[in-house]
């Protein structure tokens, strides 16, 4: 279990090693210009582990129906230290441990830097698919609101008549 925890702590420290080089790509020469790709990166991960169902120890004389049971072995054994013939039995059934984790990441180009004879400039890259989807949503949103206003207007007019 300690090894597993140490491994998780190591995974957790990966984020500290993030560097800017992941955002600014390798310069590419195209003709007399140099292009540097620029991206937005995001990543995340999570992990968890746990143990459950610790084994139970029961101490009792063989003919004694009242057994002294507990999770802590030493504590349980102490309850019959003055009784001779008292026997302890420990069960590990049900005890177990498990762990799991997941990770994901994405990189999206947002611009490129062009270094040429006429200077250095930033050319943004637009995510047209995202904009188109948002535009459709905005259109539907606007139609819904205009519709509600028209219905209210209609009721206002017919209510007067």
């Amino acid at each position, binding site marked *: 279990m300690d090894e597993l925890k140490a491994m998780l702590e190591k995974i957790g420290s990966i984020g500290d090693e*993030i560097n800017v080089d992941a955002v600014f790509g390798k310069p590419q020469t195209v003709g007399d210009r140099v292009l540097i790709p620029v991206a937005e*990166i*995001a990543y995340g991960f*999570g992990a968890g582990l746990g143990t459950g169902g610790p084994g139970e120890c029961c101490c009792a004389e063989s003919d004694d129906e009242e057994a002294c049971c507990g999770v802590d072995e030493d504590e349980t054994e102490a309850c019959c230290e003055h009784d001779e013939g008292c026997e302890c039995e420990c069960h590990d059934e049900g005890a177990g441990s498990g762990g799991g984790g997941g990770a994901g990441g994405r990189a999206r180009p*947002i611009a490129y830097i062009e270094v040429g004879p006429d200077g250095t400039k930033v050319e943004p890259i637009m995510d047209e698919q995202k*904009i188109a989807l948002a535009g459709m949503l*905005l259109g539907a949103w606007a139609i819904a*609101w205009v519709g509600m*206003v028209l219905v209210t207007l209609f009721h206002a007019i017919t209510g007067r008549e």
Partner: protein
Amino acid sequence: MQMPVQKIRVVAGTPIVVGERRLLPSVLVTTVEGGNASDGGFFRFVKARPVSMVVEEPDGARWLEIPNTTENTLSQMAAAGAAIALVSVLLMALLHLVRKR
């Protein structure tokens, strides 16, 4: 369980040399992390967004902003959506008022 903690910092990148020009990039790094490995679980989310670049040229240094056009456009669309909703609500309230009179 440790509460999630958000950290925002600007990190200077490795200078990129292109001919006589030297480019100094900077990145905005947002980190959200929670939990603890020794407590049984943790998570971490990291987002790195380029902010600007300082271009050092023979005739002086220039600061170039790196805009996130997509995010800016989406923000403007969200603002337009909110404005449409607000105007519509005001119009409907006005119409209700007129109807009552």
